[in-house]
Every structure is written in structure tokens, then in C-alpha cells.
């Protein structure tokens, strides 16, 4: 287990700034803002807005990973909850729609949590079940087509609505981030999650209810995925069960890892996981703005991710520090 002093996230924030600067270089209008109909427009806002689903997923994912788990089902849960929201949107009031969709997300999380905590199935296998079956469930709900709706209430939660000038998904993401921080850092849950992830046997012997916390964490991940699914459906005024959230579980895991949380559990940072999600999205947006041929998208992404992860690696950092010493010596 790697031991480190408490993180401050310098490398992640630096990486985000670097990616944003790179975007500015390929697209000079990147930092332009203008206000229309009381809403701020600009590429930076796009990064926040488009990054919202993965950021939401990463908020739940970081807690699961801190517990030495993983949740592969979040993409499928997004599809299920988006499908439920879109199917009900035109016939029910918004509170009913939200309650149904978020409730479904909690239920999916409960299922995952029970498989992991009670039946002791390895998280990667346990959540794979819902990852595969969940998309099928979503397709059953939508009957394989894109279910569209016209309810302006639900549409408000997508990219077209705005609160205080910011797109609603951005506000929801920051709200979820604040709520999660309040719950994990305002109570002792964060400490218990880190202790359980760091050493499950020791934590159980210290009297921590590790099973209960495991279930709760998967449920929170399900809730975050449900919100992401609602946002994604609200954004395109429809639920696309085949494509909603497809592969986003991988982006969310990547965001968590970029945010410096180890896949072996223990210390975590919710804020840096969201920063990780924004790095990924800033990269995506930058590629779209750059005009590079789409065939290069994945290569560019891979190179940037590798660079960010290498920058975090203590070994590489050590080499660079060594290099710095050498340079200083040669200079003196």
C-alpha cells in the first residue's frame, strides 16, 4: 500500500489548467463568454455542462472505489433511470417523475450493495450483472426506441434550462457535490469509508458497520447515476436506452483515478474526482473544437490521460525531482 501525506490535488488542478490552455490555443474563442436570455454561453460552460453526467457518476464512483469496490453498472443505471423519467414525463408531475427515477437508481444501488456486502460477490462481478442486464431493462422500458417527451419541467433539468445563468446540469452537479461533501465530510462516514477501504478487517474489528456502509455507498452511486440519467434524458428531450450512459462507467472510473483515489481503496477526494471528470470533458471539448479528424480522438485522449497519470505517480515525480536537483547542481 502506498503511503502518502494528505493530498492537495496540485497535479490534477494543474492538469485541468493545462488542458484548458491547450484548448485556448487550438480554439482562440475558448474563454469567450456571452450572455443571452439570462444564460451564460461559452466553451468553458460547455465543458461544465457536458461534463455533468460523468462528474455526477464520479461523485458516486469515488466513494465505491474508496471502499475497494467498483461500480460497472452506472452507465446502465443511467439508461434505466433516463428511460423511466422520459416515459413518465408527459403523464406525471415532475416530483413523481423524479421520485420514480431516483428511486429506481437507489434500488439498483441496493441490489449491487446486497450482492457485494451480503453475498460477498466480488464487486466487479456483482456490478457486471446489472451492467449487462440493466441496459436490457432500459430497452424493455423504451421498447427499443427513443422515447421522447415534451414536458418543459423535465427539459428544464437538461442543458437548455438554467439556474442563475448556469445550465441546470451544472448546478445539479455542484449541488450533488456539495451534498455529498456534507454527508461524507460533515459526518464521520468519510473516515469510516477510508478506514474500511484501507483495511477492512481492522475496521470491522474497530466496530465499524462495514456491511451497512458498503450498501449505503452503492446506493449513493446508484442515486448519482440516476441523476446523471435524468440529466442526459432531459438534455436530448428523450431517453435513448441503447446509447445513454454507454461506456460512461469507464469514464467515471478514469475520473476517479485521475482524481488520485487508488483503486485499492482508502483515501479519497470527491472534489478531485469531479476535477478528473472535468479534465476528461475539457479534453473531449478541446478535440471537438480543434477540428482534428475524429479518427485521432482516442489517441489524443489516451496520451493526455497517460500524461496526467504519470504526473501523479510518486515514482515519476521522484525522477523529476531528481532531474531538478541535477539541473540545479549543473547550474551552480
Amino acid at each position, binding site marked *: 500500500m502506498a503511503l502518502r501525506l494528505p493530498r492537495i490535488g496540485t497535479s490534477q488542478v494543474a492538469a485541468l489548467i493545462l488542458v484548458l490552455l491547450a484548448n485556448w490555443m487550438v*480554439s482562440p*474563442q475558448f474563454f*469567450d463568454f456571452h450572455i*443571452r*436570455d439570462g444564460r451564460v*454561453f*461559452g*466553451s468553458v460552460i*460547455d465543458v461544465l455542462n*457536458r461534463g455533468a453526467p460523468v462528474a455526477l457518476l464520479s461523485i458516486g464512483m469515488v466513494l465505491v472505489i474508496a471502499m475497494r469496490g467498483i461500480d460497472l453498472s452506472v452507465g446502465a443505471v443511467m439508461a434505466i433511470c433516463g428511460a423511466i423519467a422520459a416515459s413518465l414525463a408527459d403523464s406525471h408531475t415532475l416530483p413523481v417523475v423524479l421520485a420514480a427515477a431516483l428511486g429506481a437508481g437507489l434500488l439498483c444501488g441496493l441490489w449491487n450493495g446486497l450482492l457485494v456486502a451480503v453475498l460477498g460477490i466480488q464487486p466487479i462481478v456483482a456490478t457486471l450483472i446489472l451492467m449487462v442486464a440493466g441496459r436490457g431493462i432500459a*430497452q424493455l422500458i423504451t*421498447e*427499443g*426506441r*427513443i422515447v*421522447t417527451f415534451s414536458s418543459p419541467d423535465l427539459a428544464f433539468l437538461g*442543458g*437548455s434550462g438554467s439556474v442563475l445563468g448556469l445550465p441546470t446540469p451544472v448546478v445539479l452537479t455542484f449541488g450533488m457535490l456539495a451534498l455529498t461533501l456534507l454527508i461524507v465530510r460533515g459526518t464521520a462516514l468519510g473516515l469510516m469509508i477510508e478506514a474500511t477501504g484501507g483495511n477492512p478487517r481492522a475496521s470491522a474489528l474497530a466496530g465499524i458497520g462495514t456491511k451497512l456502509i458498503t450498501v449505503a455507498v452503492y446506493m449513493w452511486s446508484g442515486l448519482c447515476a440516476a441523476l446523471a440519467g435524468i440529466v*442526459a434524458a432531459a*438534455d*436530448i*428531450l*428523450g431517453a*435513448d436506452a*441503447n*446509447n*445513454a450512459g454507454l461506456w460512461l462507467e469507464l469514464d467515471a472510473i478514469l475520473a476517479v483515478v485521475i482524481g488520485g483515489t487508488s483503486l485499492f481503496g482508502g483515501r479519497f477526494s470527491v472534489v478531485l474526482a469531479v476535477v478528473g471528470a472535468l479534465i476528461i470533458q475539457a479534453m*473531449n*471539448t478541446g478535440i*471537438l*473544437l480543434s*477540428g482534428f*479528424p*475524429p*479518427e485521432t*480522438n482516442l489517441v489524443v485522449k489516451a496520451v493526455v490521460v497517460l500524461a496526467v497519470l504519470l504526473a501523479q505517480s510518486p515514482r515519476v515525480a521522484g525522477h523529476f525531482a531528481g532531474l531538478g536537483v541535477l539541473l540545479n547542481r549543473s547550474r551552480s
Partner: protein
Amino acid sequence: MNFKALLLATAFSGALVSAGVHAADLTIGFSQIGSESGWRAAETTVSKAEAKKRNINFKIADAQQKQENQIKAIRSFIAQGVDAIFLAPVVSTGWDSVLKEAKEANIPVVLLDRDIDPSGKDLYLTAVTSDSVHEGRVAGEWLVKTVGAKPCNVVELQGTVGASVAANRKKGFEEGIASAPNVKIVRSQTGDFTRAKGKEVMESFIKAEGGGKNICAVYAHNDDMMVGAIQAMKEAGLKPGSDVLTVSIDAVPDIFKAMAAGEANTTVELTPNMAGPAFDAIIAYKAKGTVPPKWIQTESKLYTAADNPQAIYDSKKGLGY
């Protein structure tokens, strides 16, 4: 059974053959890919309707996007002794042995919507597919005709990188606009055939092209991406359909809704009716032994606001898109 009766029976069946195969006697099995898209669902619905129209006993097996399920379905159709098998192949290779079994059982196979590897050419009767290069060409030609001599910057929303349909629709569109130097593609990115990505990519195109002022037309490889792009344009304060021309392919119901609202200009239909021509080919083949051409191309019909989009939307909505 006495000799007389036998003679009678032979004569009767001979008469039947000479009168031509009656469609009602045909049993056709269809190995459908599964619910991969709304178009696929519509194809299933339309196929059923077309079979009913012709009084054909039509069996559909849903393969859930798995080749092994399709192979199982074909074997079971052979065992049931159907008169013909329709196959919408999920992949292009690996069909040789099962199609040989069908050929040995003397059951003609018709490919719907997708082709298989050229090595299997002898193993099926005909393939009913759309020509996706042609679809792109129709879209490009419409745009050239519509803008006339005015300069026009086009942004393109590509399908999934590496998908043959995306490559073909791109190629066809470029051929369609090749004659007009005033029409040129200024930006091209993949929107993965999805609404969400179509919207996201369009948002960045708008930012990169001076808030959309430099964009004259959007070409999307499918309607879903265009629906997303239309939302992005509306949110950015542009008027799709008038400020920015739209041309896309597939003709799914939602694009007609946009067209009816004046937010989309045109779409090229990828008809869900692949089974209709296939039924006709089989009936002709069974009745008169007419061997159809190896490839039956479906029509790539262009729809514009002049075609009463609201009515088309209403009729298409029920198909399962």
C-alpha cells in the same frame, strides 16, 4: 390408398404447382438482429405488416445482437422446413456453414439490410439493402440544388468512426457536392449516431464557427444526431431550417416532427420496408422460378417540408421507431 386416389392426389398437386405457389402457403422465417435501434423495431413492424398483406406465415426470431442466436434460429427454421429464410446479419462473417446447410435443404436465404462477406455470395438468393453511398449522394445533391451558386459552409456529423455506413454516407455526400465548389465541408466530427453526442458536437461547431454565423448547412449521417444538433442550434439562438439548412438520413419520425415545425429541411429515407421487396422476390422465385438479381436496392427517397411531414410523422410513429 388405391391407385385411383393416388393418381388423383398427384394430379391435384400437379395442378397446384402449375397454378403457381399461393402466397398463403408460404412460411418464411426471419432472423432479426434484435432491438438495436428504433429503425430496427420499425423494420420488424413493417415486415410483419408486409407479410400479412401477402398472407404469408411469418416467423420472427430475435437474436439479441448475437450471431450464435442467429445461427441457432436459422438451424431451427431449416428443421421446421420453412420455404425461405430472411436474415439480417449482425456481423458480416462466419455464416458459411449454416448457409450451406440451408442451401443443402433447398431453402433460399434473403439477406435484409446488411450484406455478408463476398465469399458467401453463392450461399444466398439475394440481398435487399439500401446503398448508403447513394443515400449520401442524394443528400449532397439536394444541398447543391438548394443553395445554388451561393457559397455554403457545411458542418458534418459523422457516424461512429470505423462503421461502414458512416464511411459510405460521407463518401456519397462528398460525391454529391463535388460538382459545386461553392459548397464545402468546413468541420467534420463523429457524433456516434446518437442524439446526445450530436448535440454536444454541434455545440462545439457553433462555438468554433463564430457562434454559428459561418455555418450554412448541417449534414448528419443520421436523423438522431440531427435532432440533437437542432436542439443545440435552438439553444444557441440559431434558427435551424432557415438560418442553417439541415440534411440528414434515415427518415425517423422525430425528424418529420422537426420538419413540420420548420426546424429541419430534409431527410433521405432508409426505408424500414426491406421485407416487402424480399417477399415479392421469393414469391416470384417460388412460383415461376424467377431468379432475382443478386442485389435489390431499396429506394432512397428524399423528403422535404413539401411532403406534409406532419402526416408522415403520424403514420411512422406507430411503427416502433
